[in-house]
C-alpha cells in the first residue's frame, strides 16, 4: 500500500491534546514517514503528495497505552487471540497494549516472548509489548529468568492478574530488576484473605450470601508492596487498585517521595457492588466492583494524581465460560473497547478531570510507567495517535466488540466519546466511520 509505504499524513482541524508538552490547542499535525514531524507546519513543509485527514475539530492525542490486558494466546484462544485482542485495542483507541504473562504456557521463557511479538507483528493491530512472568510458571516460588526475558523484549515483569504471594521473592526481584531498569507490576491481593470470594465483601455480599473479597486483602498487599519498593528502591507499579485503603497508603508513600505508581480499572470508576444483586456474571470482574465510597475515592485519587494511570483490566473470557453460575463463572470482562468512553463519561464529562489529564492517565503516564514508546506527540516519535469524538454517544453492546469476549459490566450502558481513528506508526489502522474521512 502506498499509504503505509510512505506514511506521510497531515491531520487538519485538530484539537491537539498532549499532556507531555502541556498542549491543548487547535492545530494541524504533520506526520512524515510514520513519525511525528511538526505541529502546525507551514504549507511549504507539507509534502505535496501527503495524505490529509480532516479531524473535524475532534481531539487528536497520543494513542492510548494499556498497562495490562490479557490476550489469552497461546492456550485460551476461545477467550481472545493476539489478533482479536490487538484489534479490540485499536477500536478502543489504544496504540499499545502490554499483554499479561498469564497465557498457557505462560510467558516465562524467551521463546514465549518471541511468539507473542511475532504474532502481534502479523496481526497489525495495536503494538503489543510483553510482560514477562515474575516467577517461573507463575507459581510464586522461583524468580523467572528476568534477564533473558528482557533480552527477548519483555518490558516489565508480573504474574498479574495473579498477585505475588511470596514476599521474599518479590523483594529479591525488585532488587534484581534494578540492573535492567525494568518495572515490576503487582496486582495486590493476599490470596488467603481473598480465597473463594466472588464479589466485594460488604453489605451487599452479606445480604446475598456471596463470599466476599475483603478490602483488607488488597490493603495488606499494597502495604507490603510499597514497603518493599521503599526498601529496595526498585521500580514497582501496583495495580489495579480498588480500595480506599490502597489509595490512602499510596498517597502517604508518595508524599514521602517514594517512587511507586498505581493504576485503576475503569469499571471501578463507574459501577458499584449493588450490580451483583442481579447475580449476573458480567459483573464478576476483577478487582471486584466495590461500594460507592470506594468508587468516589478512586475517582478523586485519579483526579489528584495519587493514581497515575487507568488500565483496561481487559480479562476476556468466552461466552460459554461466563454463562455458568456466579461461582463457576470466571472473573473477567472485555474492556479495551470501553475504557476510553468510561473515562470520558465518568471523569471528563463530570468535570473531575480535564482532557489533558485524561490523556495523561490513559497514555502518557502508562507509557512512562512501562518505559515504552508512546504517550507523546513530540517531533521525532513514532506517530501513535488517536482521534477522539468527545461528543459521540453510543450504547455498549458486547456482541459488537472486536474482542472475542462479549461480556462487559457496561453492556447496555450509554457512554460518551469514541475513538474514530487509531493510527500506529503513521498508519491508520482503525477508522470508525470511513465515510467521514477526507483523504486526499
Amino acid at each position, binding site marked *: 500500500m502506498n499509504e503505509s509505504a510512505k506514511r506521510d499524513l497531515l491531520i487538519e482541524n485538530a484539537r491537539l491534546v498532549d499532556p507531555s508538552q502541556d498542549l491543548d490547542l487547535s492545530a494541524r499535525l504533520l506526520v512524515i514517514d510514520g513519525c511525528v514531524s511538526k505541529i502546525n507546519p507551514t504549507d511549504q513543509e507539507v509534502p505535496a503528495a501527503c495524505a490529509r485527514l480532516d479531524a473535524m475539530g475532534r481531539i487528536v492525542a497520543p494513542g492510548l497505552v494499556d498497562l495490562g490486558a490479557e490476550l489469552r494466546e497461546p492456550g485460551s484462544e476461545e477467550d481472545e487471540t493476539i489478533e482479536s485482542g490487538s484489534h479490540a485495542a485499536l477500536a478502543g483507541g489504544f496504540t499499545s497494549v502490554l499483554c499479561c504473562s498469564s497465557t498457557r504456557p505462560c510467558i516465562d521463557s524467551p521463546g514465549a516472548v518471541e511468539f507473542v511479538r511475532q504474532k502481534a507483528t502479523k496481526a497489525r493491530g495495536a503494538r503489543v509489548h510483553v510482560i514477562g512472568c515474575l516467577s517461573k510458571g507463575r507459581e510464586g516460588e522461583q524468580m523467572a529468568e528476568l534477564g533473558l526475558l528482557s533480552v527477548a523484549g519483555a518490558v516489565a515483569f508480573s504474574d498479574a492478574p495473579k498477585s505475588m504471594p511470596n514476599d521474599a521473592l518479590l523483594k529479591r526481584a525488585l532488587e534484581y530488576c534494578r540492573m535492567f531498569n525494568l518495572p515490576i507490576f503487582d496486582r495486590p491481593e493476599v490470596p488467603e484473605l481473598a*480465597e*473463594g470470594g466472588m464479589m466485594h465483601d*460488604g*453489605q451487599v455480599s*452479606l*445480604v*446475598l*450470601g*456471596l463470599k466476599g473479597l475483603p478490602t483488607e486483602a488488597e490493603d495488606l498487599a499494597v502495604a507490603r508492596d510499597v514497603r518493599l519498593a521503599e526498601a529496595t528502591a526498585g521500580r514497582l507499579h501496583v495495580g489495579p487498585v480498588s480500595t480506599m485503603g490502597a489509595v490512602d497508603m499510596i498517597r502517604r508513600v508518595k508524599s514521602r517521595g517514594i517512587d511507586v505508581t498505581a493504576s485503576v480499572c475503569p469499571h471501578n470508576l463507574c459501577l458499584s457492588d449493588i450490580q451483583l444483586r*442481579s*447475580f*449476573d456474571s458480567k459483573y464478576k470482574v476483577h478487582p471486584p466492583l466495590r461500594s460507592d465510597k470506594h468508587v468516589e475515592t478512586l475517582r478523586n485519587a485519579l483526579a489528584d494524581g495519587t493514581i497515575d494511570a487507568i488500565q483496561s483490566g481487559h480479562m476476556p473470557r468466552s461466552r*460459554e465460560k461466563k*454463562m*455458568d*453460575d*456466579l*461461582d*463457576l463463572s470466571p472473573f473477567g470482562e472485555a474492556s479495551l473497547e470501553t475504557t476510553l468512553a468510561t473515562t470520558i463519561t465518568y471523569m471528563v464529562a463530570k468535570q473531575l478531570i480535564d482532557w489533558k489529564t485524561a490523556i495523561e492517565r490513559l497514555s502518557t503516564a502508562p507509557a512512562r510507567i512501562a518505559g515504552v514508546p508512546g504517550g507523546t506527540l513530540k517531533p521525532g516519535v513514532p506517530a501513535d495517535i488517536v482521534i477522539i469524538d468527545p461528543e459521540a454517544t453510543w450504547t455498549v453492546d458486547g456482541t459488537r466488540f472486536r474482542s472475542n469476549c462479549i461480556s462487559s459490566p457496561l453492556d447496555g450502558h450509554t457512554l460518551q466519546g469514541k475513538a474514530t481513528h487509531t493510527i500506529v506508526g503513521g498508519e491508520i489502522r482503525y477508522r470508525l466511520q470511513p465515510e467521514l474521512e477526507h483523504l486526499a
Partner: protein
Amino acid sequence: MSTAVQPDIEFPKNWHRRHLLDLESLSPEEISTILDVAQRLKELTQGCRQKISLLAGKTCANLFFENSTRTRNSFSLAAKRLGADTVEFSSVGSSVAKGETFVDTAKTIEAMGVEWVVTRHGTPGTPHLLSRELNCCVLNAGDGPHGHPTQGLLDILTIRQHRGDIKGLTVALVGDIAHSRTARSNIWGLSKLGAHVIICGPPTLVSPRWTELGFEVAHHLDDILPRCDVLNLLRIQFERQRARPFPSVHEYAALYAMNGVRMQKAKDDILIMAPGPINRGVEITPEVADGPHSVILEQVTNGIAVRMAALWLLSGANERAKANAESSPAD
C-alpha cells in the same frame, strides 16, 4: 387413589408472582397471602395428609444440584397432595457431571413440559438466573447461603399458629448466620411482618454489618435469652465453612447450645425451633429438642403446607399471565 374432591378455595386477587425466589423481594401482604393459603390448604388436606385435585395434570420437577432429603421430599409430597405429578432430578449421575451448564439442564427439564422447576444449588442467585431463562415457574429450594424462602415461610407459619400474630414478637436466630439461607429468609420474612429480629452467634459467624441493616446483633445467647419469644437454632454448616470459625464444637456448645439449664432462663412460653437436620448436642440438647417447647416436627408438617401454597399460587399466576398474553394483541 385421589379422593378428587373439588376444593373450596379462592385464588387471591393480589397474587401475581410466577416465581418464588426469596423473601426479601416480597411485600408483607404477599407473605401473609402465602401463609393464609398455606393454612387453608393444610385444613383442606386434613393436616397435609389427604389428597385434593387442585393441580391435577401438572408436573413439578425437582432439580437439585445439592443433596437434600427433607426439602425435596417435602416439595414432592406437596405436589402430590395437590394432585400434581413429580419428576426427580439430582446432579448425581446426571448430565451436569458431563459438563452441561445448569441453565441447559433446566431448559431440558422444562422442555419435557413441566409447570414448576424447584431448584436447589450451592451458588446464590441460580434460581434468579433460571427465572430469566425459563418460561415455567421457578421455586428456590435453597441457593447457597442466600435464600430458602419456603423454609422461612414454614418457620413463620409455625410461629403464627402458636402466637396468632408475628408483630411485636422477639425472635432470635442463633448460630451459623454466615452460611445460613434459613437465616437470610427468616430475617426478611419476620422483619417485614413486624417481629424484632435478633441475630445471635460468634462474631466470626455474625457480621456486625447486620446492624447497619437495622437488625439487633448479639454474641451472648444468655444475655438475650430472657427477652426471646422464639428461638430458631440454626445448624452449624461445617460443609460450607472454609476455616473453622470457632475453636471447637465443645466450646460452641458451651456458649450456644440450648439445654435444660438455659431453658430455666427462658420465657415460660418460648418456642424452640430448628430447621433441621439438627446436630444433637451441638446447637440443641435432646431434652430441649424433644421437650414441650419444641415445635420442630410441626415445622416439618407446615413445610408441606407452605409448599402446596407456593405451587398453587405460582401456577395460578402463570396461567393468568398466559391468558392475558393470549387475549391482548401482540405487537
